[in-house]
Each structure stands twice: as structure tokens, then as C-alpha cells.
């Protein structure tokens, strides 16, 4: 990818077998809230959810696009967007929020408040040994030697403290929120611009123009020499592709503007690559009728995840899923300046929104300890091959 070096610091090779040295850190800009990736040296920002950072390879690389496929009722994808923006506020980044349905100010007012004390430190020590005491109801009678072994570590988290934790039940204080600079774009309030030669329909064109103006004016692409400290721009685009953006990709199999959203994403990614910005886009993929368009949309973004909530589906009553709120599918991970990307070691991920954390865990089958399972099958076998057809359960020897 022949992109300017600013957003992504390239490093020639990281393999252990070569004697090349990694490029020195002095090339990387030191912006608050970012850190270089341990895998390929990219500059990463946190997405606001530390489990999600772990799943997508440490964080979101600056200059990339994260696509979130919404769940049916848009509850968890909206939550992820709010986490993303809240992380921007806490780290001091600039924000750009575009929405067609709810006013961006309403979304900003719903941002969760950050938890100040060190929750991550407590989480790491939870898995370690707990001192056994006689009144502890967890002491085992026969297998007591295994009492202090750490339980199966299902929560995914990296040991380095990078992101922040948020309390969903409280909203962020207005002072903290107003300290961050936020640009907003509300589709309903924009005056329709006649786009004679543009291939994009009017709302996407206006949105793209607005993003371009912000990037240029605030100097994220290096066009205006910034005297102050460099900063990262976080773009949150809510529910692109829905009908309220003027796009009919959700209602028809062969939409009139079938290339509108894909053109927009292509242009947006170009803008992101040439500036210090990160974008998170949510798309109501369950409404998009044409799967080919959805495939193109995924290919045009860098990181793509899909949320599948159990609400309202038959999976809600499945006992396997009773601890979780939905499944998380990682559809695509980017290969930035390298040949292969780090994939998470498991594809079965489930998420749960707790009050203080949005956890993404490995979905593993619990041991099948139910006693009725084997009994029922044995009884059926006995009835099947036994001589008595009357269902007599007497076991006679």
C-alpha cells in the first residue's frame, strides 16, 4: 500500500530469523491514547472495549476503517459506537459524529462515564490463587489440591493496560464531554446539495465533503502546519446504508444506487489513509437484501465484525447461550504493510454487556454433567431392544 508514512509507520521485517533491526520509534508520533502495535508497528488506538481490542489484534490502527454489522435492534452496535466515542473523549482525541436517525447530540449525551480506579489490575489478579479458608464454601472435599488452580481463563484481555473501562449505568459528565471537540453531521438538517457530476447521492456526498473539510481545516492530514500537539480524529458514522441516508440498498435487491455506499466507503478510506484518523461505521447488514453488495462493503473496509444478538431469536432460550447476550463474528482483519495478519485463536466468540464492561469471551461448551441425559437414552434403548413393548421399566436380572 503506497501510503504516506504518517499514519502507518512501516517496518521492513519483524521475523526472528533476520538480523534486521526494527525501525526506531522516533518515526512514530507520540499522541496521547495511542501506542504502537507489537505485531507490525502500526499506531493503534483503543476502540473503547478492551476485549474487542484484543480480538482485532491490539487495537484499531490509525488510518483504518472498522465496520460493525448491526444486530437486529441496533442496541449493541450503538453501544459500541458510544464506547468508541467515549474513549476518544477520555484520550483527548477529536470526534466527528454523523447520524441520520437520532441527533448526534443525543448520542453524545448517552456516552458512558469512565471508571477512574484501576479495574484492569483487579481483573488480572482474579484468576490467581485465592487463599483457602475453612468457611469458604468453595473448598472441595476430595479434589482439594486443585482448589487454588486458576479457573479457565475465558475472558480475553491483554495484560498491557491500553483502553479504559466505562460504567454503562452512568452517563459521562458534561464537563468532560465538552472538553472534547466534537463535529457533528445530522442528515436531516443538511440542505440537499445538487450533485450534478458526483456519482454519489446527495447525503453521502455532503457527508464526505464535511469530513474532508474537517480534516483539512483541523490539519489532520498535515496540510496546515500544526503548532500544537498532533491529535487523532475519531469518526463515528451511525447506520450508514439505512433508508434515512437516502440509500435504497436496504429495500431492494437491485437498488438504483447500488454503488453509492461502496463508492462512499472507498472515498472515505482514501481520506483516512492520508490523515491521522480512525473511523467506525455501523451498517444495518440484516436489512441489506443483496449479499453481493454486503460482501463488497466488507472488502472495502479494513476490520469487519458482525454482532448477532440473541434477543428475539430462538437462540435466546438455548441453554448454551444463557450467559451471553449475543455472538460476535470477526469477518475480516486487515493486513497492514505485512503479509499476514494475526487472527484470534478461536472463532467462537460471544459477548455480554455487563454494567462495567463489555466482555467478549470464548464460547466453550460446559462439561455435560446433567444426569438425565444418559438415563433417558438408556431407558429408550431398553424399551427398544427389550422384549416388553409395554414400557415396563422394571430392570429384572
Amino acid at each position, binding site marked *: 500500500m503506497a501510503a504516506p508514512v504518517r499514519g502507518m509507520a512501516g517496518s521492513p521485517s519483524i521475523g526472528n530469523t533476520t538480523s534486521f533491526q526494527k525501525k526506531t520509534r522516533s518515526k512514530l508520533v507520540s499522541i496521547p491514547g495511542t501506542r504502537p502495535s507489537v505485531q507490525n508497528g502500526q499506531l493503534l488506538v483503543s476502540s473503547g472495549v478492551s476485549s474487542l481490542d484484543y480480538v482485532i489484534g491490539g487495537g484499531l490502527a490509525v488510518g483504518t476503517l472498522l465496520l460493525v454489522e448491526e444486530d437486529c*435492534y441496533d442496541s449493541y452496535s450503538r453501544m459500541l459506537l458510544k464506547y468508541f466515542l467515549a474513549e476518544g473523549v477520555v484520550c483527548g482525541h477529536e470526534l466527528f459524529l454523523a447520524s441520520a436517525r437520532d441527533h448526534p447530540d443525543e448520542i453524545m449525551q448517552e456516552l458512558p462515564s469512565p471508571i477512574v480506579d484501576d479495574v484492569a489490575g483487579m481483573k488480572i489478579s482474579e484468576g490467581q490463587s485465592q487463599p483457602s479458608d475453612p468457611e469458604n464454601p468453595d473448598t472441595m*472435599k476430595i479434589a482439594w489440591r486443585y482448589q487454588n488452580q486458576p479457573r479457565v481463563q475465558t475472558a480475553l484481555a491483554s495484560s498491557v493496560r491500553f483502553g479504559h473501562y466505562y460504567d454503562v449505568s452512568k452517563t459521562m459528565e458534561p464537563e468532560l464531554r465538552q472538553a472534547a471537540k466534537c463535529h457533528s453531521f445530522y442528515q436531516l438538517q443538511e440542505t440537499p446539495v445538487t450533485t450534478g457530476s458526483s456519482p454519489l447521492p446527495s447525503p453521502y456526498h455532503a457527508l464526505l465533503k464535511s469530513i474532508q473539510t474537517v480534516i483539512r481545516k483541523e490539519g489532520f492530514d498535515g496540510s496546515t502546519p500544526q503548532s500544537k500537539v498532533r491529535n487523532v480524529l475519531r469518526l463515528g458514522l451511525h447506520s450508514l446504508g*439505512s433508508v434515512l441516508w437516502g440509500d435504497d440498498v436496504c429495500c431492494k435487491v437491485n437498488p438504483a444506487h447500488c454503488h453509492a455506499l461502496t463508492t462512499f466507503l472507498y472515498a472515505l478510506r482514501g481520506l483516512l489513509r492520508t490523515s491521522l484518523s480512525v473511523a467506525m461505521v455501523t451498517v444495518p447488514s440484516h436489512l441489506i437484501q443483496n449479499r453481493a453488495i454486503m460482501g463488497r462493503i466488507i472488502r472495502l473496509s479494513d476490520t469487519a465484525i458482525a454482532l448477532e444478538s440473541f434477543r*428475539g431469536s430462538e437462540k435466546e432460550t438455548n441453554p448454551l447461550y444463557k450467559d451471553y447476550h449475543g455472538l460476535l463474528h470477526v469477518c475480516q482483519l486487515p493486513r497492514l504493510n505485512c503479509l499476514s495478519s494475526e487472527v484470534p485463536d478461536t472463532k467462537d466468540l460471544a459477548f455480554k454487556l455487563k454494567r462495567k464492561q463489555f466482555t467478549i469471551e470464548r464460547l466453550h461448551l460446559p462439561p455435560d454433567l446433567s444426569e438425565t441425559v444418559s438415563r433417558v437414552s438408556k431407558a429408550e434403548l431398553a424399551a427398544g431392544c427389550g422384549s416388553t413393548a409395554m414400557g415396563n421399566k422394571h430392570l429384572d436380572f
Partner: protein
Amino acid sequence: MLLDVMQAGGGFILLEGNIISGEDVHVLGFESPETQVCAGLDSSSVQRLHFHKGFPDPLGWTCRSSFTVERFTSQHITQLIKDTQHAQASVLVVDSLSMVLRHHDPVVFCQTLQELRNGGVIKTIIGLLHSDLHQQGIVGIVCHLAGTVISVAPADNERLSVAKTTRRTKSGKVMQEEEYFSVSEDAALSVQAKPRQPGHVQRERDVSEADPTSNLTFNLRLSEDERKAKEKVALPFVFSQQKKSALLRPTPGSGRIVYEPDANDDFDEEDPDDDLDV
């Protein structure tokens, strides 16, 4: 701003609840006549109900209706509501949205609904949508826009119909309910709890949970004395509490090998065979 969409194979909307709560109701009737909708309402309620006649001429071919389908835009509707005396806390009922969707572009239609919702003049929009008349995509986008969706379908029992309500709140919580209801002759709605279904899955589950130790020729149960004796049996590796906690104390390195050097390990570099007489 609530937007209710009812999907139905037929049936009409009952307005009594809204009128009783003191709100102005504007009905855009494209599919049913005024008499049918207002049947059963008393005179004070009828005053608060403003019926805009679209039936039987919704497209305005014979110029007999006061409101045609083409006029379903946010400016026209807002004007219509402001023309009545009190223009606050209005409820807009559209019968039906299917008629409007057939003559308007779905994108423009949804944008109109969004503008009406945010306009401030209308508090709630209730619309009836016949889901079998549209493609799945169009039904999907209208339901996605709605805050509450009530799906009506006939139940197994002919007398009752089932209504599935899905409500979405601003905070992202989703609540779902299923209710059985029936409509009587004088348009009274009676909601019932879920009727018991004969011979279904729950019965089978009860059968499989019968006690398996009951009908055997040998005894698998324990009496009280036997249980006490069982608990008194000394297990082989049961230690006292002090020894347990001593063994459980976390050692600095688990898997540490303790080895005292053997006589054979005394290896002399300069005399490997140990036969020099020095």
C-alpha cells in the same frame, strides 16, 4: 416519538385508548370509511377525532376525498394538523401505510416519517402496514424505523388472534410480549393470556424426569443411618485443615526439582576417569 406499525392480514385499529387519554387524533383513512372507524365512540371522543377522508377515493380520481395519497408529505401533514384548533400532543393514525407506500418511493416515505417524527407537531404515529403486500425489504426498513412493532396473526384457535409486540427503548432495551386477543361484535377488544395448548412439549418433559430409582428390584436409596455412616468413612487423602493449607500454600515455583548431588556427580575436569594418583 413512537411509531407503531401493525402488520395484519386485515382488521382495523381501535382508537379508544388514545382518545381517552386526551390527545388529538388525526386519522388519514385511505382504506376504511369514517363510519366504520368511528363506530362505538361517544360524542366527546368524536370531537377530538379528526378524520381526513381518503376512502373511497384515495388517489383523487373523482375529487371526492379531502386528502389524497400524493399529499402524504411532511409539509402537507404538518399543515393539516396545524389547521385544527389545538396543535399539540397530536397522534397521527394512518390507515394504511401500504396504500401510501405503493405510490411513493420507499426512501422518500421513510424520510417523511422521520421528518414527521422529529417535527414536534406530532407526538405519535400509528400506522397499519399489510406485510403481505410488500417485499420483505420494505417491510424490514419500516419496522426498523419503528419504535414499536405489533404483528397480528390468527392463532391456532380460530376465535383468538395472537399479537406479538416488540418495543425498543432509547437505551437499547428490547421488550417482547405475546398476547392473545379477540374482537367482539361491538368492536370491544379483549386480551387474554396464552391459552393452554393440548398435549404439547411440556408434558413430555415431565415424563422424562420421573425418578429412575423407583421401580427397581434392588435398592439404590440410602436411609438416614446409611447416609451418616457413609459420611463417616475416612477418605484416604483427607488431611487435617492445617496440613491442607500447608500443602496448598503457593510455592514460589511449582515443579521445582530438589536434587542432592550424587557421588557419581563429582566430576573432576582434569581427571575424568578418576584413576590418576595425584
